[in-house]
């Protein structure tokens, strides 16, 4: 050993080094998305982690500067693609804040229904994937059936499933069909039973608890310093939720609780998400009750300058034709201003910082992507932990590569 030290010019510290470097990702099955972690390992313990992001960066902020406002919805789809409708609605709300239009109550409640459905879908994916990473595939396969039912509702509403491009500035492109309402009723009728079964499968499961309790814990103070939002922040015990702190889309009319955790570990994140699913269900039920008493023909606000008229009207009515032309050709006056509007996305506060200079496209549009902001805490959360803890920590953070890279 001594001899080789003298003869071969190795970098300093190499021979006595006890740690080794390991790549987790970019296409590791446990990363659930394209991002890389370069881990420095001491045996099975993590000494340091260096996350690398940007593998699927698509320059949405740059593209948005070259697109008319109504075409940006499709970009937001591809941020957190597990809950696209929330992103869509967030963008419409931003635009509506800029042009200051009042949205009818029924449209707001329809949006709430759609957003809460997406939240359920998003949380189901995340929580069942924690199960997968701890070795329980059953829950994952089981709840995906119900995520599928949610996607079928989306399909009835807007025609697509994953990247929904749902709604327009001012409301929805069309009213919910009867089939959509029926599927929704069916979903809230059969889902609670499945959800209870899912909880029975994991929540008090000894193996699951042993794997997740104390894994990837973070204190409330550090979480706030790291800009955590959403279920990850609430798991640390901070009851910050955009829906109640800065209400939008009529959330102030609903009665719901903000579930919080205590320790901020993987198990608490899991519990908070489960509790939120129940709250979302209750919000949907309340919204259905409220909608029942409202005029069923209203599905958009009266903003002819921004909301595309019915196609039949464009062919037969002069006024509709003029508005259609103005919107499509970019002749509408856009107010100047700076808007920040945020919605409670599947994994945190999804913000849109829009600067308009009166032009046809945004002067600047910045997406506050919750994933991107809290993922930087990952090294701190896994330092000293086992490799298997890092994997469950990662899946419980609900990292979505599309949102991470923007």
């Amino acid at each position: 050993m001594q001899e080789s030290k003298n003869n071969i010019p190795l970098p300093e510290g190499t021979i006595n080094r006890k740690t080794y470097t390991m790549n987790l990702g970019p296409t590791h099955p446990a990363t659930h998305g394209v991002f890389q972690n370069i881990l420095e390992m001491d045996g099975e313990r993590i000494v340091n982690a260096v996350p690398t992001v940007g593998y699927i960066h698509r320059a949405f902020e740059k593209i948005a500067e070259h697109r008319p406002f109504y075409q940006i919805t499709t970009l937001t789809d591809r941020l957190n693609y597990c809950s696209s409708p929330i992103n869509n609605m967030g963008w419409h709300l931003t635009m509506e804040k800029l042009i200051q239009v009042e949205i009818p109550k029924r449209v707001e409640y329809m949006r709430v229904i759609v957003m809460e459905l997406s939240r359920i879908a998003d949380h189901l994916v995340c929580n069942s994937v924690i199960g997968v990473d701890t070795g329980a595939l059953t829950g994952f396969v089981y709840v995906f059936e119900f995520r599928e039912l949610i996607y079928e509702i989306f399909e009835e509403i807007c025609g697509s499933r994953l990247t929904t491009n749902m709604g327009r500035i001012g409301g929805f492109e069309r009213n919910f069909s009867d089939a959509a309402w029926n599927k929704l009723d069916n979903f809230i009728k059969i889902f609670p039973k499945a959800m209870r079964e899912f909880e029975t499968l994991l929540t008090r499961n000894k193996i699951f608890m042993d794997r997740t309790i104390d894994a990837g814990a973070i204190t409330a103070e550090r979480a706030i310093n790291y800009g955590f939002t959403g279920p990850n922040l609430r798991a640390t015990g901070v009851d910050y939720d955009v829906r109640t702190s800065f209400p939008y889309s009529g959330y102030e009319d609903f009665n719901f609780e903000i579930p919080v955790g205590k320790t901020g570990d993987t198990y608490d994140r899991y519990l908070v998400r489960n509790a939120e699913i129940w709250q979302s269900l209750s919000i949907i039920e309340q919204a259905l009750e409220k909608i029942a008493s409202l005029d069923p023909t209203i599905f958009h606000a009266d903003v002819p300058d921004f909301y595309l008229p019915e196609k039949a009207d464009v062919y037969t009515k002069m006024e509709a034709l003029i508005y259609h032309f103005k919107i499509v050709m970019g002749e509408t006056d856009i107010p100047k201003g700076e808007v920040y509007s945020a919605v409670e996305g599947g994994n945190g506060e999804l913000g849109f910082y829009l600067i308009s200079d009166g032009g046809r496209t945004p002067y600047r549009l910045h997406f506050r992507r919750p994933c991107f902001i809290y993922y930087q805490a990952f090294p701190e959360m896994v330092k000293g932990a086992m490799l298997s803890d890092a994997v469950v920590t990662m899946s419980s953070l609900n990292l979505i590569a599309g949102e991470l890279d923007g």
Partner: protein
Amino acid sequence: MTNEFIQEKLSKAFGEEIFDYVQHYDVFTFTADKELNLKILTFLKEDAELNFAFLNDLTAIHYPENSGKELAVVYLLQNMQERKRIRLKVFTNIAKPDVYTASALFSTANWLEREAYDFYGVNFVGHPNLIRIMNVDEMDYFPMRKEYPLEDQSRIDKDDEMFGRKNMSIYAGEQK
């Protein structure tokens, strides 16, 4: 917490150094000299009454016409208890875009500043790891600046082999 209260506290502490107080929709916005950004952020964070301890967002903006102050760095701060958001802007010259880093104050700022550097070239002085985060390391320009247009969608000078299109007959006519 009212805007007047915030403005009063800030002008008492910093006087004329903070200016352009304006309400942009629901966010109270003000501008400051870039040399003072850390002092102001620390004050906002640590003052017991203001308590803006949550850095919600940080980003940069490019105003090519704003000569001498082309780049803006925007901090969106939040007081969670009072449910209040405020925005601080600092402007910097694009020829020497040095702004002090807030990453020691807010861990959030670490990656957000790397992103602002990556896309706008804001040089955050004192940042622990100011390297590109989204783009490739070899990139030698800052793509979100206004002088860079989007790629022409119909360009044909790309190396098609890289995109697996070499042998596709519909592209054959376009190759040299």
